């Protein structure tokens, strides 16, 4: 265990036994404030649900044409940027497999847009909330002191050593978490929405700049795919971190708002 954690633990133990006053930022009264506010908890799980619906249906749609292009147009007669080496649900698409996958495009498209609407509205509510409630400033924006290489290095190295966060750390996000969440909320999600809209022939008729800026309709489709991959990578790391930190305790905190035993404050 590193010196930093040891000292933090010592402070906590001292707090337990000797009732030394602990700064409020480290350990406020546990009962009153939930780990996550109700709005954050509800929007988190709606987002989770929508994300899985979008992921599954997105994969189904890609299966009908697992070829990606750059520029305005692309079809089986034009060169690809890259192909995904899977069989397709369309016989016309040359994949090298003698097998045509079942076609699931119809309901996939319906569900993809339904989930997208719910996600956009939920995301809008969340973003308005974090901007006006102080959540953004208090919990997501890194403080000036945090933006140092040392703080970043600590944040990176600790999970790599499989060290569980201390109780105090479990109540806030370190600089790496803050930067990642900000990137996902303010960059990746807006980008995945923009690249999705840039594929819509009706939407771009009213707002042609959305697709022209991205270099064309097929470029938008390719970028939509890449941003989705980035979001999936975030999801994998996010779940891995939750597993490392204590799965049930963190999941319970996100469902009920109450912290798990290992996160309890004194």
């Amino acid at each position, binding site marked *: 265990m590193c010196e930093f954690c040891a000292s933090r633990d010592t402070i906590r133990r001292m707090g337990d036994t000797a009732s030394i006053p602990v700064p409020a930022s480290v350990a406020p009264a546990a009962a009153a404030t939930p780990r996550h506010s109700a709005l954050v908890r509800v929007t988190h799980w709606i987002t989770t649900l929508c994300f899985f619906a979008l992921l599954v249906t997105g994969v189904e749609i890609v299966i009908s044409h697992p070829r990606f292009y750059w520029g305005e147009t692309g*079809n089986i007669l034009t060169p690809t940027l890259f192909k995904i080496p899977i069989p397709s649900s369309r016989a016309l698409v040359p994949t090298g497999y003698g097998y045509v996958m079942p076609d699931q495009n119809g309901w996939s498209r319906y569900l993809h847009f339904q989930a997208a*609407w719910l996600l956009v509205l939920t995301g809008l509510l969340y973003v308005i909330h974090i901007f006006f409630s102080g959540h953004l400033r208090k919990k997501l924006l890194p403080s000036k002191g945090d933006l140092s290489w040392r703080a970043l290095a600590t944040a990176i190295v600790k999970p790599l050593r499989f060290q569980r966060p201390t109780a105090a750390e479990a109540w806030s996000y370190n600089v790496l978490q803050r930067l990642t969440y900000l990137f996902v909320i303010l960059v990746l999600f807006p980008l995945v929405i923009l690249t999705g809209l840039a594929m819509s*022939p009706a*939407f771009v008729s009213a707002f042609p700049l959305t697709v022209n800026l991205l270099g064309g309709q097929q470029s938008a489709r390719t970028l939509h795919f890449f941003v989705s991959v980035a979001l999936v990578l975030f999801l994998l790391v996010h779940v891995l971190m939750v597993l490392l930190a204590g799965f049930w305790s963190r999941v319970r905190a996100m469902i009920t708002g109450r912290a798990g035993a290992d996160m309890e404050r004194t």
Partner: protein
Amino acid sequence: MSDISRRKLITTGVAAAAGVTGVGVAARLAQKYGLVPPDHGGIYGIGETLTYASQRLLTTHSLAREFSQSQISKPPFANEMEPPTDAFKRLQAGGFVDWRLSIDGMVDRPSTFSLAQLKSYPSRGQITMIQCEEGWSYIAEWIGVPLSHVLGLVGVHPQAKYVAYFSFQPDWWDSMDMADALHPQTFLTYGMNGGELPVGNGGPLRMRVPRQLGYKNVKFITHLTVTDSLKSFGKGLGSASPEGGYAWYAGI
């Protein structure tokens, strides 16, 4: 019950009631202004209605992007199609001189047009993209007569809301609202890239709706019906697409 929780309960109740009323009023208004698609029922109806309503409000008069001659896809692409029937082959052998387009429904003068008649009307060209819901796309120059011109000839009743269009292919039909039917880029297309419209691309006559996906651009058009309700057509979902699991509105 403490004051705070009672206040919370009342606030939540009022907010919920306002929300339910708001949704009800919105649904009524949407229905009144033609913002509800015919396939609005079922579990995906909410998403479809939101997409259609918001795009109708945003894109009523917007034009699909047009491209330059140099951007026309080479080689030209044609998607797979079902093998033509014997009746189609006979028409094709005759150079489609016997091909007819009939228009009926809510019009003053139900009429039938030959290809030669359609070609005698002011001809328009547009270089636009056709994109499939699957992901592929191509750009071509489409030549034809604007549907609005032909609808003007037959005299559409003011209460008309949709134009249903039918293919020579059995059971293949679709429909669009008047915003798309009267849109200047919606063509009855008979030419492509300077020549005749190839059969593989829907020749001799294809409905071209460039603000919607490929499958709304039905090939081999033979018949149009102008109507104020799609309930009596097929299963009442607006086209053959929702019956096969695909959305009626394909502006996406």
